[in-house]
């Protein structure tokens, strides 16, 4: 449980951008987003499912996504989410930021490497 919580805090900042990425491929309802993330990650993300919904609600409040009740292909009532224009822009800038951060961390942590002026 505590390991999940650790991963929870690391991923919280990036969960938003991952959710936006999911929605950039298609309009989805909450479970579809969760399933997409699981499939992409090749298994469990180590997060509670409810975290995904929290991310969706927060981004809806900020105007990055918009939602509408609809009917799924299984004829069930479902709340569908879509990116707004602001959301698309946010996805682009956040992706850049996160990837840059990941590269920096990787290069610092990789063993046996010169760190000054060396490029991959």
């Amino acid at each position: 449980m505590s390991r999940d919580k650790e991963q929870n805090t690391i991923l919280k900042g990036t969960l938003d951008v991952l959710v936006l990425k999911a929605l950039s491929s298609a309009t989805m309802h909450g479970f579809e987003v969760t399933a997409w993330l699981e499939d992409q990650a090749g298994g469990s993300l180590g997060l509670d499912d409810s975290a995904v919904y929290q991310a969706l609600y927060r981004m809806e409040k900020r105007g990055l996504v918009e939602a509408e009740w609809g009917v799924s292909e299984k004829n069930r009532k479902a709340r569908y989410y879509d990116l707004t224009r602001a959301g698309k822009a946010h996805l682009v800038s956040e992706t850049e930021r996160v990837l840059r951060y990941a590269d920096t961390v990787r290069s610092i942590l990789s063993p046996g490497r010169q760190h000054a002026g060396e490029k991959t």
Partner: protein
Amino acid sequence: MKRRSVRRWLRLPVSDTARTMEDVDAELAAHIEERVERLMAEGLTEQQARVEAERRLGGLDQARQRLLQDASERDAALSVREALRSWIDDVRYATRSVFRVPAYAAVVIATLALGIGANATMFGVVDRLLLSGPAHVVEPSELYRFYLNIQYDENSDMETFAPLHGGALMAFREGVSSMDHVSGYTTWSLTLGSGAAARPLEVGAVSASFFPLLDVKPVAGRFFDEEDEQPPSGRRVVVLSHRMWQSDFGGQRDAIGETVDLSGHSYSIIGVAPRGFTGVELEPRDAWVPLANRPGEWTRSWSGYVMPIVGRLHVDASVTRAEAEATGAWRRGYEGPMATVMRTASITLDDIRADHCVFR
């Protein structure tokens, strides 16, 4: 119910926690159904699947709590946004409708412009007349005009006069200790220059204490002092208005000390008043000269010439006391005709902004 419909009518955000809760429950239920279906497809029984689904959520109740919090904030923000959007749409629609008929739009704009312009002008006038007082005059609320109140006989009404004799000016200066810089001012028409280039000027002939009374500061040079009004006719010195300084002397500082011909007398320019300054009244003036320059007994007489007299009330004095002092000074000092009646007259004071003297 009634409260909510009032808020709807005013297009205020209608927060509805019950509806938010319904939405959250519905979304959670849908999620659980999908998860259960998936898990059953992987081989779990329905009961096992449900337990697992709730576990993955992080516990149904805990999930509900967390989501309710975020959903409430979301719905509040959304309804504000929606209200704002509908206002903007209304404005857009109205604007489009108006401009669909350009002639109508033109009339609307013209009407608004006239109305706003008229209002602004009116306010400007009222402000200058009644509230702010004349330009560059410090604390106009402390400035009072002297009024004579007299009843000629028991059959006539009480009459009130503002312009008073030069003798009164002297009497008030000496006898009213509650007021400072008691001054008189008159309008004098003079001619600038001679021959074909001559031009008429509207000049203020004022007591030397006039400028200290109003506490206005010169833009260049100086204003009058007591020596400028020494009898018999004072010094021939002139203070230019800002406008005249700009138009006739190009706003140059070396205008100070130059001389000008005013109705045959050679006047020395000693100073320039600030832009927009017109004295106590609001009519523009070209320049100011000492009152003593005027021929005739302006500053001492108890008959003939009259002029408005104004003074500044001490901060800790009362109008009533000043009026009593002024009445006493008038009655003791009066030496003009109809002395019996005149000596029963009383002097009252009123804010300079309450009345505007337009006279020569």
